[in-house]
């Protein structure tokens, strides 16, 4: 068994935030006595990721995903715990380590603003010691995959958000890192651009075997790209496994949509034991039914009511996740 690329053990990060109070006297008072408050951004997280895996970090804003990612990249020192990435300790920031990883930050750009992208790429290539021939080959591949030929001559400030994100990806990948950290990479992009980027990331992972860790709050990103999901909420690891099992574990129910042409009959619906009416639109009713009872309930409805149409669906992953965020940990962690 090859050693996992990334090992995280009992990782924690607490930082002190100065308390800011309202009002003039408080502002002046804060000049000589600062009050601090401890924020536990990451609490005792452990997991391991193999070479070439694609993992999504899921969690609401402020959950600790970006903090965890930054600790893996070596940008932050943890308060406690151990991390090994490709055999290195990230926050020692050894050049050999930094050459193997790459990070894309969704709302921040590393491109130089006033000049064409190629020039920014040249600097990055020089800093990461990428030989000229290899660089040109890699760039050609990336330009092709991302369909970027048209924008290469324009100064970056004239590019659209989507085009700029393509440049970010090229800048991040031109030295062929072994681990790619993506923090909200599709933020602000339109649907088709989001889809293109997802395709690209998936293909890149396939081709090069680079491990990809992605944080996003677009469910579509995680659903499309990540066979494995790590859910972080309030700094704690809630779940580590596949998305499908997540739904089953935390929200073992299905949605039944029934269309009936005779309203009067609806009172005869056996709403009990976990079955609840969720929505009602004209002649269509949506019911929330525990997974185990679905076959029996569906059969009952079909037999007793004048059903025009019936559909059985998995709950939307967003709703599942929303419930988890608002209700906290239900059941254990895998």
């Amino acid at each position, binding site marked *: 068994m090859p050693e996992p690329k990334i090992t995280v053990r009992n990782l924690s990060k607490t930082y002190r935030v100065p308390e800011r109070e309202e009002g003039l006297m408080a502002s002046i008072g804060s000049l000589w006595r600062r009050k601090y408050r401890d924020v536990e*951004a990451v609490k005792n997280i452990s997991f391991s990721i193999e070479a070439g895996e694609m993992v999504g970090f899921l969690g609401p804003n402020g959950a600790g995903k970006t903090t965890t990612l930054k600790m893996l990249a070596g940008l*932050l*020192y943890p308060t406690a715990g151990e991390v090994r990435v490709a055999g290195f300790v990230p926050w020692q920031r050894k050049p050999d380590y930094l050459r193997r990883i790459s990070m894309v930050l969704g709302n921040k750009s*590393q491109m130089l603003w006033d000049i064409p992208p190629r020039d920014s790429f040249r600097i990055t290539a020089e800093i990461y010691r990428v030989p000229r021939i290899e660089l040109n080959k890699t760039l050609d591949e990336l330009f092709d995959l991302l369909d970027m030929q048209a924008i290469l001559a324009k100064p970056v400030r004239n590019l659209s958000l989507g085009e700029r994100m393509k440049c970010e990806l090229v800048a991040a990948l031109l030295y062929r890192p072994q681990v790619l950290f993506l923090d909200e990479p599709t933020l602000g992009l339109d649907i088709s651009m989001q889809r293109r980027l997802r395709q690209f990331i998936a293909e890149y992972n396939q081709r090069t075997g680079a491990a990809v860790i992605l944080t996003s709050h677009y469910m579509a990103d995680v659903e499309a790209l990540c066979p494995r999901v790590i859910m972080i909420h309030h700094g704690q690891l809630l779940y580590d496994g596949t998305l499908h099992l997540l739904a089953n574990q935390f929200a073992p129910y299905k949605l039944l949509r029934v269309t009936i042409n005779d309203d009067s009959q609806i009172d005869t619906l056996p709403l009990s034991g976990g079955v609840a009416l969720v929505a009602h639109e004209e002649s269509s009713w949506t019911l929330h039914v525990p997974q185990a009872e679905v076959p029996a309930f569906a059969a009952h409805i079909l037999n007793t009511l004048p059903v025009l149409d019936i559909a059985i669906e998995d709950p939307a992953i967003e709703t599942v996740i929303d419930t988890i965020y608002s209700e906290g940990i239900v059941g254990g962690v895998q």
Partner: protein
Amino acid sequence: MYYIRILALFLRVSVQEEMAYRSNFFISLLQSLLDLSVGVLSIVVLFSQITIIHGWNFATTLALLGTYLMISAIRAIVIGPSFESLVGLDGEIWTGRFDFTLLRPVPVQFLASFRRWRVLPTIDLFLGIGVLVVATTKLTQALTLAHVLTFLIALLAGMFILYAILLVFASCVFWSPGFLFTWVFDGIFQMARYPLGLYPGWARLILTWLIPVGVMTTVPAQALTGDIPFITLAGTVIIAVVLVVGASVLFQTGLRRYASASS
């Protein structure tokens, strides 16, 4: 070699970025000439009323102005723009792009100090040299090679002191991110326009030992226009080295703080 190649690339890209702004060359030239005129006229006005102050006369003070313009130009060509893009308004630390700098397999201090250049202030460098040359023609004492050599050594030390002080002011941002420390330095740096001898005693002490901006320009000017004791020259060089080392330590400490305290 690696670092030299990167430096050359930084210079090239900075020139490209500067060109993209199409900042009018003639307006810059006008501004430089204006600064020069005001500087020279100030000295003219001062010495129209008195011939000598603590050993400094019109010619020697003019020489100091030339030195000041040269050091100021060097600050505007390299170290200044780099630090501004790091800690200034809309700089890397303010916008969060500093994370990218931290991810590079290159020492952060190197990037912070040399990442950005501006070529236009070369005008000021030449104007400074011009003023210096004119001032030396008015000197009563003849200019020897020894003078020029000690001047160059003192000037180099002065530049290192400038770098160190700027580095300290820039590092302060790690402790207090919102405050524009480099602007404070801008104000204090103005004091280097005039010889230390023209300031009252206590001000002289502050400008020599606390924030050595005075040493930056006064010592080289003295080296060129008079004879400075070897101990002064040696002392200046030592101060320069100590300050650069100390400032670098401060910067590294600040970096560690940034990585522990931010989220």
